[in-house]
């Protein structure tokens, strides 16, 4: 009696889920992120090497190094440094990168979007491609398309990203000369690194989608729909497709994180000016603030994508609700 009018509408369902669920998840996420920030903070400091000495230069006297240490805030104890760092993070200030002589926030503001663009491009093509290819393969079992999909899945999952990158450079960059082999600028620049970032994901998802469609097609409701005289196309799209999508959606969150991290390597291969390239450079230079901020931001991205995937899951599957 007197329930919401829009009992079954998508937005309403989402709202109901969100009220209870978001709060719990936010709390858990905050705990996780605090943990990550501590691990990142300690990790970079365990590394040995003296950043103050590095900044001051080889010829600097002890006094100069000490002065540099005070300027960098490294003379304080670890807990004090951590509190200062976290206070800054809460205000949106990620510290100062001594190696690049600029604010970490400013630096990441130019780099993070590049990594996100690259990962999202890889993610989107992989999702679209695998869902379509997997579905066609699942529907047309035993045909050449099915065989092609399986081959793609098996080989794609076994390829090293580095090797794939080199092969792409060799074939499309050097032999055919179609695509630029490094840097960014035009749409052409993103094709090879994007392919590389999403390849493994596309392979595993194609396989998942195929087996999922094969399972769903055996279900009674698909047979029932066909028996009621509903056309093949409508049955596939309305009944099979949506149900087959569930396992894909479940893995999206984790997979996006893996893909995002995989971009570290791809960025280095194609000289893509993103966060991954920055990470490898800054670790060598013992750029504490930058490294710990990159780690923190990566896990924020991961936590957010997991969270969004969970919400998406409730939208796709009305049987599931979070309490």
């Amino acid at each position, binding site marked *: 009696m007197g329930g919401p009018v829009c009992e079954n509408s998508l937005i309403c369902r989402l709202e109901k889920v969100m009220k209870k669920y978001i709060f719990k998840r936010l709390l858990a996420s905050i705990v996780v992120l605090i*943990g990550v920030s501590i691990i990142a903070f300690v990790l970079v400091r365990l590394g040995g090497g003296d950043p103050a000495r590095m900044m001051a230069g080889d010829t600097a006297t002890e006094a100069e190094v000490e002065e540099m240490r005070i300027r960098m805030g490294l003379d304080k104890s670890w807990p004090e440094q951590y509190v200062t760092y976290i206070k800054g993070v809460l205000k949106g200030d990620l510290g100062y990168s001594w190696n690049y002589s600029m604010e970490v926030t400013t630096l990441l503001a130019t780099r993070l979007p590049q990594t996100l663009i690259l990962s999202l491009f890889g993610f989107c093509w992989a999702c679209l491609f695998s869902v379509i290819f997997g579905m066609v393969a699942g529907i047309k079992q035993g045909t050449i398309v099915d065989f092609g999909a399986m081959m793609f899945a098996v080989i794609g999952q076994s390829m090293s990203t580095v090797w794939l990158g080199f092969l792409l450079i060799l074939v499309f960059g050097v032999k055919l000369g179609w695509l630029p082999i490094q840097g960014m600028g035009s749409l052409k620049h993103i094709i090879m690194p994007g392919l590389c970032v999403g390849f493994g994901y596309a392979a595993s998802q194609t396989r998942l989608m195929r087996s999922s469609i094969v399972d769903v097609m055996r279900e009674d409701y698909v047979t029932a729909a066909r028996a009621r005289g509903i056309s093949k196309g409508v049955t596939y799209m309305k009944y099979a497709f949506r149900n087959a999508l569930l396992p894909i959606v479940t893995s999206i969150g984790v997979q996006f994180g893996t893909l995002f991290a*995989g971009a570290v390597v791809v960025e280095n291969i194609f000289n893509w000016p993103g966060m991954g390239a920055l990470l490898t450079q800054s670790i060598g230079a013992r750029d504490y603030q930058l490294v710990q901020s990159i780690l923190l931001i990566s896990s924020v991205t991961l936590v957010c994508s997991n969270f969004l995937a969970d919400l998406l899951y409730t939208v796709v599957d009305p049987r599931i609700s979070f309490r």
Partner: protein
Amino acid sequence: MKISTLLRKMRKSKLFMIGFFMLFAITVSCFTSRWWVQWDSQVSDLMSRLGAPDWFANGLSGHPFGADPLGRDILSRLFEGGWVSLKITFLVTLSSMILGSVVGLIAGYYGGWVDMVLMRLCDILSSIPQLMLAICVVAILGTNMFNLIFTMSVTGWVSTARLVRAAVFGCKNKEFVSASKVMGASGFRILWKEIFPNTITPLMISASGHFGGTILLETSLSYLGMGVPVPVPSWGNMISDGRSYITSAPWVVIVPGIALMMTVLAFNFIGDGVRDILDPKNIN
């Protein structure tokens, strides 16, 4: 499941057998290569720098797969590097499994705050991408073989711990555990003798899926200069070192890449086979 039933199921699984024989062939040829290859994998011969493959025209005394930028025979490096890569993969998988099952067993059995703390630790570790964490840890420890193995193990046990914990939850309230408790067995004994055998299935599934990912991770780390240090060859550093010669001598990169792909393929086949055999969902 009895050992004989398991072996019969394994023999019947095509995927598992294909993977098994591929891996067997690769492992044996890598291991025995030290006795039959003609070149030392670490000695360079500048006369044959970037020499093209002669595809066994001169038998093993030529360079069947060509020579690398320092004139070292790629065939010799391929097999020795393969042995290094396989050893690393095996050790990393083994130690991640041990670490993962210890954490999973303790968290699952003791429950309460122990479980809470360990699982939050898992949450934290799994929300830092493994590759990024590995890069940082290797950078801290320095690049050598031991550190590489340590890093990949320390960053790769979380999913195993979760699986084992779930398996422990499934059996810790069963009668045989209570019986053991009543008879006065210690916590360690119950965990080891009663509960651990019941976590073997998820552990094997997890391990079989772990191998392929580990080899690929080693390649990525190698590319970033954090893999097996030169001059010891590994497939990862052979591929990475060929970068500058990809246009003039593509075989330097292509040959180890294919070997790596075949190996990961074999591991994936075995992994799928093991899952088919052991997963209760695939019982029919």
